[in-house]
C-alpha cells in the first residue's frame, strides 16, 4: 500500500505487517539482548547444582523455589542455563565468524588480486585446509592448545576460513577484471589502495551473505563439538552442550534439551532468514 507524496512518487506506508516482516532481525536482537542482560534476567546461578532436585519437570516448586523450565540432570535450573547459554552460543558464533571471515577474506583477496605464484600457494593452502577432516583439526587443536572457550573459537575458525577464502577469491577475480579497477591500477594506484577502495566494497555483499549463513552453522558446529566432548568446558552451558547432554533424556526429561533446542533453532533460523533476505537484496543490486 502506498500513499502519494508531494512530488507524486509512491511512498510505502509503515504498517504493522511490514514491521512484523522483520521478525527474524527482531528475534535475533531479542536473543542478543537476553545474552547481555543475563545476570538480571536469570532467576538462579546457572551452575548451582541440587542433587535432591534432579530431573524435575517445568513448574516444579520446592521450598519457595520454582523451576520454571524444570531442572537438569544435576538439579540446575534450565531457565537460567538457557538465558546464560545465550552468551556462550552467540559469542562463540560471532567471534568465530569474525576470525574466520577476516583471515579467509584477506587470503582470498590476496590470491585473487595478485595472481601468479601467490594465488597458487594460497589457494593450494586453502585446499589443504579443506582436506583435513574438521574432526581431526578439532581434536588435535584441543590436544595441543587445551580445551576452553577461546580454543573452541580457534577450532571453528580454523575449519571455516577456507570457505570465505574461496568466495572472496572468486569474487575478487571478477571485480579485478572490471574496467574501472584495471584503470585504477594502470594509473599507478597501490595494491592496498585498490583493494580497500575498489575490491572490498564490491565483494562485501556476497561475503556478508556467507557470514550470516556461517553464523548459523557455527552455532550448530559448536553443538557438534559438545557432542564429541570438545566444546565449551562443563559446567558452562551453551545451548549446544545442553542439547547434547539432554538427548539422553529426550523421552523422559524432555525439557533439558527441548528449551535450549528451541532457542538454538530460533537463533539459527533467524540468522539464516536474514542471510537469505540479504542475498535477495544484494542480488537485485
Amino acid at each position, binding site marked *: 500500500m502506498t500513499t502519494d507524496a508531494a512530488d507524486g512518487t509512491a511512498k510505502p506506508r509503515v504498517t504493522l505487517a511490514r514491521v512484523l516482516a522483520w521478525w527474524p532481525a527482531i528475534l535475533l536482537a531479542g536473543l542478543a539482548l537476553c545474552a547481555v542482560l543475563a545476570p538480571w534476567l536469570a532467576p538462579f546461578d546457572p551452575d548451582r547444582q541440587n542433587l535432591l532436585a534432579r530431573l524435575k519437570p517445568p513448574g516444579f516448586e520446592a521450598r519457595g523455589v520454582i523451576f520454571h523450565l524444570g531442572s537438569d540432570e544435576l538439579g540446575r535450573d534450565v531457565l537460567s542455563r538457557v538465558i546464560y547459554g545465550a552468551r556462550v552460543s552467540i559469542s562463540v558464533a560471532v567471534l568465530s565468524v569474525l576470525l574466520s571471515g577476516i583471515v579467509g577474506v584477506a587470503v582470498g583477496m590476496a590470491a585473487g*588480486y*595478485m*595472481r*601468479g605464484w*601467490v*594465488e*597458487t600457494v594460497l589457494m*593450494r593452502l586453502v*585446499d*589443504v585446509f*579443506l*582436506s*583435513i*577432516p*574438521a*574432526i*581431526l583439526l578439532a*581434536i*588435535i587443536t584441543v*590436544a*595441543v592448545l587445551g580445551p576452553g572457550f577461546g580454543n573452541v573459537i580457534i577450532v571453528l575458525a580454523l575449519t571455516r576460513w577456507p570457505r570465505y577464502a574461496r568466495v572472496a577469491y*572468486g569474487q575478487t*577475480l*571478477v571485480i579485478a*577484471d572490471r574496467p574501472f579497477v584495471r584503470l585504477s591500477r594502470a594509473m599507478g594506484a597501490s595494491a592496498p589502495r585498490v583493494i580497500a577502495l575498489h575490491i572490498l566494497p564490491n565483494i562485501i555483499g556476497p561475503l556478508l551473505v556467507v557470514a550470516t549463513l556461517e553464523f*548459523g552453522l557455527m552455532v*550448530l558446529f559448536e*553443538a*557438534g563439538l559438545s*557432542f*564429541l566432548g570438545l566444546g565449551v568446558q562443563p559446567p558452562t552451558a551453551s545451548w*549446544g552442550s545442553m*542439547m*547434547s547432554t539432554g*538427548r539422553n533424556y*529426550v*523421552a523422559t526429561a524432555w525439557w533439558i*534439551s527441548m528449551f535450549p*533446542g528451541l532457542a*538454538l*533453532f530460533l537463533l*539459527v*533460523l533467524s540468522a*539464516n*532468514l536474514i542471510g*537469505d533476505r540479504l*542475498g535477495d537484496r544484494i*542480488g537485485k543490486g
Partner: protein
Amino acid sequence: MLRFLLNRGGQALIAAFGVVTLVFFIQRLSGDPTALLLPETATQQDIEAMRASLGLDRALWVQYLDFLWQMARFDLGRSFVQNASVWDIILSRLPQTLQLAAGALAVALLIGLPLGLIMALTRGRAVSRWIMGLVLACQSMPTFWSGIMMILVFGVWLRWLPTSGIGTLAHLVMPSVALGLLSLATYARITRAAVVDELSRDYVRSARARGAGTGRLVRHHLLCNSMIPIITITALEISQLLAGAVIVETVFAWPGLGLLTVQSIAARDFMVVQAVVLLGAFVTIGANLAADILYSIVDPRVRLGAKS
C-alpha cells in the same frame, strides 16, 4: 586447457602430499596409541615395550621416512588398534559411506531441487517465503538431535523404520535424511537463484510471448541451463559430506568412514587416520579442481591461471 589440467593436477598431488605430511606430524604432537592399547595397570616399562614393538619410539623423522617409503610402495600400513591392514579396514567401510553419501545427495537433490524451482517460479508470493522458511528450518537443528528424534519417533514409537545399523534400504532412510537435510537448503537456494536468473533471460520472454506454458519451459530450458551451478555445488558438497557424516554415523551406528575417522583419531590409530585423510584429500582437491574448471566454463571472464 590441457596445460592448465596438468598444472593443477601436479599442484593437487603436492597439496595432497602436504596434507598427509601435516597430518602425520600434528597427530604425533598429541600422544600415541600405546596408553590406550594397554590395561590401566600397565607400568612404564610395559608402555615403553609396547611403543618399541610398534616402532613409535624411533625419532620422528625416521618414522616419517619409513612412512614415505611405504607410500611409495602404495602400502597403507597396518592399524595398531585393529591388527589388520588399513586397506582392508577402509575397504570394509567404503561401501557404507558411498551408500550414505548417495542417499544424502538423493534426499538433498530430490527435495531441494523441486523446492528451489517452485520458489523461483512463485517468487514474490507468500508461498515462496513459506517454503524458504521450511527449507531453512531444516538447516537449523544439530544433526545429533534431529537424528535421535527421528529414531524415537519413527523407530521406537511408530516402528516404521529400524532404529540403527545397516542391512536394508529401510536402514538407509533415516541416516540419509539426517545428513541430506544439511545440504537441502543449499541446493534449494542455489536452484532458486539460478532459475530466477534464467527466468529474466530473453529467450524465456520470447518463449512466453509465443505462448509456451510453464511446464514446457521448465522441462526444456530452465532445468538444463540451471544445471551448471548445481553441479558446481555438488562437487563442493561431496567433500563436506565426510565431516557431516561423523555425527550421523555415530548416532545411527552406521559403520562408514566418518565413524572410523573419529574412532581412529580418538584411539590415535595413526595409519588409519592418515589413510582416511589421504582419501579425503583426493576427493576434496579433485572436487575443487572440477569446480574451478566448471566455474571458468560458466564465466568466461575468469581466466584460468593468469599471471598478475
